[in-house]
């Protein structure tokens, strides 16, 4: 997928707090500051709670959680069976519960069936195991195209499926949240659960990529 990792459209100014560059605040920055002040003054919002909430989703919840689930399923057949039969309960065994993960469904990818997850209507995504969704997942191209041209979208991510592989697209239109269990790659025999978890990527758990074999 390297040819698609070009930089157009991405600036790297990732912070709009007043800085040495002295750039003026944009309209949206000003509006959000004003709205926060208004809500604090009205006694509707506590800024410390905002900080704590941001810290949770920025540093504590993320795709490493989902990778633990996948790695455990790869090494522990009984866990895998529980995971596919009752995903929410099995994922909760590892402590991953909460908002946008209340009702989980795990989809197993195999050599003959490739599952990929989208939310065409908004941005539904399993927060406790994957964190907040990346911009591309929430953007027009992915939401518009994945249901009508899944193989084309997958090719852009570097996955070229042969015609005998069935593609199943899951549109998250209700309150179920989907996590793809990717195939365990070749060359990982004898690896520990921790080592396997390191191989598992966010995108493979959305279903847009496969997990690559470890580099030798």
């Amino acid at each position: 997928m390297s040819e698609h990792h070009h930089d157009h459209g991405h600036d790297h100014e990732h912070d709009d707090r007043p800085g040495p560059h002295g750039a003026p605040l944009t309209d949206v920055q000003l509006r959000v500051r004003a709205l926060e002040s208004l809500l604090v003054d009205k006694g509707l919002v506590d800024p410390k709670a905002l900080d704590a909430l941001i810290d949770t989703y920025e540093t504590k919840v993320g795709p490493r959680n989902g990778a633990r689930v996948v790695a455990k399923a790869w090494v522990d057949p009984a866990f895998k069976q529980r995971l596919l039969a009752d995903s929410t309960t099995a994922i909760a065994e590892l402590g991953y519960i909460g908002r946008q993960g209340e009702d989980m469904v795990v989809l197993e990818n195999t050599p003959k069936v490739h599952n990929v997850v989208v939310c065409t209507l908004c941005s539904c995504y399993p927060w406790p195991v994957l964190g907040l969704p990346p911009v591309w997942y929430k953007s027009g191209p992915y939401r518009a195209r994945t249901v009508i041209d899944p193989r084309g979208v997958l090719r852009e991510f570097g996955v070229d499926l042969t015609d005998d592989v069935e593609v199943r697209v899951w549109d998250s239109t209700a309150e179920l949240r989907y996590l793809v269990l990717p195939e365990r790659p070749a060359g990982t025999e004898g690896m520990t659960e921790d080592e396997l978890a390191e191989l598992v990527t966010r995108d493979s758990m959305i279903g847009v990529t496969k997990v690559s074999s470890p580099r030798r």
Partner: protein
Amino acid sequence: MNGIHDLGGMHGFGPVDPEPNEPVFHYDWERRVFALNMTSGFLGRWNTDMGRYAREHMPPAEYLATTYYEHWLYGLERLLVEKGLVTTSELAAMRSTGRAQGLKPIGVEDLPKMLRNRRAARMDEQLAAPRFKAGDRVRTKNVHPTGHTRLPRYARGKVGVIDRDHGVFILPDEHARTGTKVPAHCYAVRFEGRELWGPDAGPRDAVFVDCFEPYLSPVDGEGV
């Protein structure tokens, strides 16, 4: 509503554009909008479906010209006024004319309980008997409500097969309109690509859509 949010199947958006090593947030204002939405929502004056419906009202041209957290900002401002937490004039002036009565802001100490949520939209199984079971053929209704719905346009009036019954959930349509929790079975329905998109679709492509029971009619006499 047939809003711009319902993007499935549209052409012309160009390639998917993943950003390597993408940060969780790109700008500080995105962090604040995310957290303002969450903590305001925890006050209990609106539900998730009302939140989605509010964002769906963003005018189409504006929706496409703005980023994700700008959609959230639009929806939040709309709900704050609609649900009486902020007046129109307060929002216009961005100045408070008095503290909200009878509400206490969500504090740091409240967050663990709020975030460790175990039950959201699922309801007791006993509240509704399922009309369909796995393997049943169904047709989605051809409906175009102006209110909130989770049946995307590309999947209306289409024949599919029930893949599984997820159980009983709050029907979003009524929940967004009145806040009433109407129990409805929610099914994963499998649609073949060619049923949705015609002969150009791949023969081994299928789309699964989670459909609430009121969206579905039985298909009789067509065999399986």
